[in-house]
């Protein structure tokens, strides 16, 4: 059954167009999604794991060796003191008024200068502006209207405004915030908050009925890790469901479904669809797991990998097995809903009842923390049942339910998957006409 199925799967993938539509294109799309997810996670993780020292170094780098200044001026160092150029007004023989900058080499206007448009250029006190722009701009022009670099401030308008005429100008204005006193204030707040949590110590939530206390101090790191692993599994399963449906549709629309199924046998044909599906998922996993692993290895220290990740590899494997089987069940149910799209009642039931059950399970599981000792049994029952346990299983590394609960959940889920697959195959055989 497997060999002819494998032969058909390979034969299909050897057709260039099918290879692109069934394997390559979805793979590229999934990798892009995963890359975006990993970039987001990296940014969040790098923010979460910062110490005050890291923050100071980061701000200092931005202030003293700015990448933007290097790009614009050729050097990342702060510029020398800003030149203040007050423009003079003149009238020509027709009475028209115009303004000119001071006739010095240092006041020659440039696009990347900054200007203040005010009624009386000679009288305005620019101390605050000099402080603000110093180090990032070469000249500050003060005039009524004729000085027009990329950044023009209108301090006398209500409310005051700044017009920025180029993208580089926009970036330079944002660079100002790193040099401003606010950044120093923010650093101080960060240090105080860090010190507060240091004094408080690592937080543990002593949840009843769980093997270990729940460590909350590094929870953000763990959540990021959970999100990444869940994303890989979800995208993998999404690929699986889409591939499954796509191949069936492809055959059905071309009219080749019946001749092909008749010529190869239903079981072989169905296994070929799953083989194509698995190939898609496998290629995706091979492309995403190594970078994810290296990302987390490089960002987090091993002691930050709290909960289940800190324990032995067995805990980790069991959780991944539970998570994979849970999501596989979800994908299978979704695939059934898709297959039975013509039978509205079935389709509706398969699509929405599991979602409702999962949401209810999550809600009851959460509320069980208010029930004291009696809540423990309810929590364990919810966590051990398929479908209703999706939320507790996802966050199992944080709350660490007893391992036998996860094992029971995995086992029950696998039994349900097998039963559904069998009924799915029978349904497929009986409803080829409806595809």
């Amino acid at each position, binding site marked *: 059954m497997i060999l002819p199925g494998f*032969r058909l799967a390979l*034969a299909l993938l050897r057709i260039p167009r099918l290879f692109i539509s069934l394997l390559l294109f979805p793979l590229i799309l999934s990798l892009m999604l995963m890359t975006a997810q990993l970039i987001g996670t990296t940014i969040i993780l790098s923010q979460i794991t910062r110490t005050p020292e890291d923050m100071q170094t980061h701000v200092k780098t931005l202030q003293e060796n700015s990448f933007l200044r290097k790009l614009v001026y050729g050097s990342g160092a702060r510029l020398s003191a800003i030149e203040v150029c007050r423009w003079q007004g003149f009238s020509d023989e027709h009475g028209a008024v115009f303004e000119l900058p001071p006739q010095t080499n240092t006041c020659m206007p440039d696009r990347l200068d900054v200007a203040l448009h005010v009624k009386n250029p000679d009288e305005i006190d620019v101390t605050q502006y000099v402080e603000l722009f110093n180090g990032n701009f070469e000249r500050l022009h003060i005039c009524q209207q004729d000085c027009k670099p990329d950044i023009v401030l209108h301090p006398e308008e209500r409310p005051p405004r700044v017009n920025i005429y180029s993208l580089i100008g926009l970036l330079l204005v944002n660079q100002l915030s790193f040099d401003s006193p606010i950044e120093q204030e923010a650093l101080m707040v960060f240090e105080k908050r860090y010190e507060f949590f240091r004094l408080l110590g690592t937080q543990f939530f002593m949840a009843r009925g769980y093997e270990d206390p729940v460590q909350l101090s590094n929870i953000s790191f763990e959540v990021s890790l959970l999100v990444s692993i869940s994303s890989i599994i979800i995208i993998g399963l999404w690929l699986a469901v889409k591939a499954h449906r796509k191949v069936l549709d492809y055959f059905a629309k*071309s009219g*080749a479904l*019946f001749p092909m199924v008749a010529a190869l046998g239903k079981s072989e044909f169905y296994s070929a669809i799953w083989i194509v599906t698995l190939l898609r998922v496998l290629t995706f996993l091979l492309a995403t797991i190594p970078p994810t692993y290296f990302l987390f290895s490089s960002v987090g220290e091993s002691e930050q990998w709290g909960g289940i990740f800190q324990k032995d590899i067995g805990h980790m494997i069991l959780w991944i097995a539970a998570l994979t089987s849970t999501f596989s069940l979800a994908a299978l149910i979704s695939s059934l809903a898709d297959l039975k799209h013509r039978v509205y009642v079935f389709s509706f039931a398969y699509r929405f009842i599991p979602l409702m059950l999962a949401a209810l399970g999550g809600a009851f599981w959460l509320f069980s923390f208010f029930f004291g000792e009696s809540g423990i049994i309810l929590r364990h029952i919810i966590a051990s049942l398929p479908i209703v346990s999706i939320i507790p299983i996802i966050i199992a590394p944080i709350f660490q339910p007893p391992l036998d609960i996860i094992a029971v959940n995995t086992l029950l889920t696998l039994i349900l998957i097998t039963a559904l697959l069998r009924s799915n195959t029978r349904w497929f055989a*009986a409803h080829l006409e409806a595809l």
Partner: protein
Amino acid sequence: MEYRNPLTIEAENLCVSYEKTLALRIHELQVRGNIIGIIGHNGAGKSTFIKALLELIPADSGRLLAQRGPNATRLVPDRDMAFCPETGAVFSDITVKEYLKLWCRLKAGSPHYLFKEGQSILEILELEELLHKKGRELSKGQRQRVQTAAGFFSQPRLFLFDEPFDGLDIQRTHELIELIRSYGSKMSFIISSHRMDVMELLADEMIVLEDGTVRTTGSPKRISQDLCPHFLRISGVPDYERAYEALQMALPHCFLRRSGDTIRIASSQMVKDTVLKTLQKNSDYEIPIVEGEPTLTDAMSLYLRKIKEEKDGMQEDKGMSY
């Protein structure tokens, strides 16, 4: 024509349904022939019969099987059968060549089969000019030819065709008939079709299905006689149009067909006297009425007309009961 290894189709207490609709209900059936035709009205269960034989639709109960050869070896769909559906089949975004190579790879063991042993089939079906066209560029007839070729590449012992002559012009129809006949010694065929003229030429045994049940079986000639026990042919009628109209009025339950200057009357009852009286009313001449054998087209036309009348009658009864 006598074949050495004729095909036998057997069914016993067979029930096949879609959801809750019973599509086939065959108490007992045994048909033996090398080219077996399946005919019947729309929705009679012809396609369902073929799909049930191919095991594409599971039977609710009973059995349906095909056997062939001196030892009556049971034919297994994925090993011994090929199927060409009514619409033909080619993937829309790949070329005919790629599609046929896929079939060769799967069923003939190598994609090179296409241009070696398969070359003659390409020539007979005139597919060489289509090889570089994509599936979406083909007409229904062309798609059928492609799937027919794919079926032959499988070298089946039984080839099942669902409405293969639909949309084919006369020339292509005769070419397909010749192709089927030429392969008749190597494989058996089951053909479902509405084209009675073709089925009469081609099939050695036939199954007539009616609302999912077997109405009758036998050779085309026997079926014609069974469905149309009385047949008259009238030639040389002086006032042809008037006579035809008068006969239509007088014989509302018969099937009348004009062919050249001949009027053909298919009937389930003796109507010769009625015909004579009607013609005598309209003409002073004596008109020769020949009792003869109906063609399958005549017989099936009468039969389909009867079914339609019965169904219309049932609907009227229903309407009246409301």
